């Protein structure tokens, strides 16, 4: 049986919300801590992703949308955005390498 919107109690929302808050706080903490940058970035990335999917899943109640439609739309956006990003990024390095010294 599919869960519908109304089955989620207020409690769940508060839980999610506090989880989000926690993640934000942790991120702020990490930001100030002197961690190695790569570690930091990857930690924060994980945090972001967790947060984004929580928001997407609950607040935007994607969970209750028709999943395949959402899948197609997000996959499409993701593919395009990733294409743009990953095909431009190598040029950043290259431009730096060939920059006028």
């Amino acid at each position, binding site marked *: 049986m599919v869960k519908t919107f109304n089955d989620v109690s207020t409690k769940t929302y508060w839980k999610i919300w506090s989880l989000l808050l926690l993640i934000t706080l942790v991120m702020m903490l990490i930001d100030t801590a002197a961690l190695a940058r790569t570690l930091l970035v990857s930690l924060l990335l994980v945090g972001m992703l967790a947060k984004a999917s929580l928001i997407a899943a609950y607040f935007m109640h994607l969970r209750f949308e028709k999943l395949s439609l959402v899948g197609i739309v997000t996959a*499409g*956006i993701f*593919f*395009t955005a990733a*294409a*743009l990003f990953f*095909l*431009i990024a*190598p*040029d950043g*390095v*290259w*431009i730096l390498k*060939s*920059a*006028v010294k």
Partner: protein
Amino acid sequence: MATAHVLEHTHTAGSFLGRYIFSQDHKVIGIQYFLTAMVMALVAGFLAIMMRLQLAFPNETWPLLEKLFPLGMEGGVMKPEFYLSLVTMHGTLMVFFVISFALVSGFGNFLIPLQIGARDMAYPFLNMLSYWTIVPACLLMIASFFVEGGAAAAGWTAYPPLSAVQNAVPGSGWGQTLWLLAMALFIVSFTMGGLNYVATILTHRTQGMSMMRLPLTIWTMFIAAILALLAFPALTAAAIMLLFDRHFGTSFFLPSGLYIGEQVLPHQGGTPLLWQHLFWFLGHPEVYVLLLPALGLTLDIIPAFTRKPVFGYRVTVTSLLVIAVLSLIVWGHHMFVSGMNPYLGEFFSIGTLLITLPSAAIGLNLIASLWGGSVRLTTPMLFALGVIALFGTGGLGGIFLGNAVSDVYLHDSYFVVGHFHFMIGGVTLFGIFAGTYYWFPKMFGRMMSERLGKIHFWLSLASFYGMFLGMHFLGLAGAPRRYYSFTQFSFLEPVVSLQLIVTISSFVFAAAQVIFLLNFFYSLKKGSKADKNPWNATTLEWTADSPPPHGNWNGEVPRVYRWPYEYSLPDAPQDFTPQTTPPAEAKVTM
């Protein structure tokens, strides 16, 4: 219920203003777009003719033109910067304000609800808004010719620093700012249109109209709209950054140490290549946004005049989707020699040439659609056949360019100009003509003159080859594009004589378009009355009156029982079986 509400709204005919000017009826909006495109075509075509005059007769004076452009044509002699404004505005207007308007916005708005069995678009108000957003955009573009410094002159690609620094070229002042603003308006409007197309096609299909029963026109409009939604924001971002670079001192595209106008500019650390990436991330999908609907119209027109289904409906839909996906990851083929990372060059080259596989499959389907048919060479059919030929030629030219190695030599040469005129100026323009002759009866309730139409076709076809086939060979000989004249280099001497052929052909082509316009407006008034289905076609729009009333169908929206290409069905009463024919009357194949 909200939709019912919308319906009542479009049904109220209202005053003249509400019916023809601020109408929310998709048919009226479609025709408004179409007529706007026509006006812009006249402007952009006129600019092209002026360019051709200069290229063929570099030393002549044109006192008449001086009257029109006293600054650009001082003393009747064209200034180099004015030539560049002509090129820029010709390209921009043609791509965005002629072909996009007529093909995507014009035919799209007119045909989508009619062919899927809807009473209107999903958001009629948004639709009207989208039209009224491009009106100021058109005015801004035209006005830019008359501001200080003249119209934008950095090419339709607007590469910075040329487009970012006021002193770099005269058109880089107000002209470029207006260009950017007009493009921003265009993008806003196109986004509204795209939203509308996607939502309409997904939610407003009539009963029985499954996705695999959609006419190919609708498929191509659908894919084009999604492509536009995905690709256009990149130019929005780029335009915002360029405006900030131009007016607020940021440095997104401007590196340090630029020495322009005898002074060092204060900018730091930006890179012009970024603009190229963003522009072509839009620019390349954009050409398919224009190409696909042209192919869609063609694929719908051909079966009506071969009296048989198109060849390979499923293959075509698949190929269209593959083209759409690939077109998002090949933009770098415009940048092979731009100083981009050479590894990216290899990637983009291989990716670009992958697009030729689905494209060639569509090419084969187009040709094979004739096989075994009873070909009837009416004017729309002639133009549709023209589309096939031009698509083949232009596409095969693309193979030279998609190959990074040959593109080193051919980049920014007239070979490129020839290639893209075949595609973006040939396939699409011929597609528009085919569509116009075919759907004119539905739009206006009258037939266009076949005789004038045929003259229009033959003159256009012949002069088209005269103009743009020759350009490929100019390019092979090395002639660079955006040159004001070809007299400064001795290796270009063999090229000068070819320019004359091109120019003369362009006069013939322009004359042919005058015939078209005469035909159009004459038939509007005097054409023979058309009945509902003059071509004996099967798709839904032919079950509505010509022209269709508000709400498209009196009474109920028809129900669909079959795919749109049911021609010459054995045992059927006629050689065409409309999509609305129930299974009881003729067997359903798809």
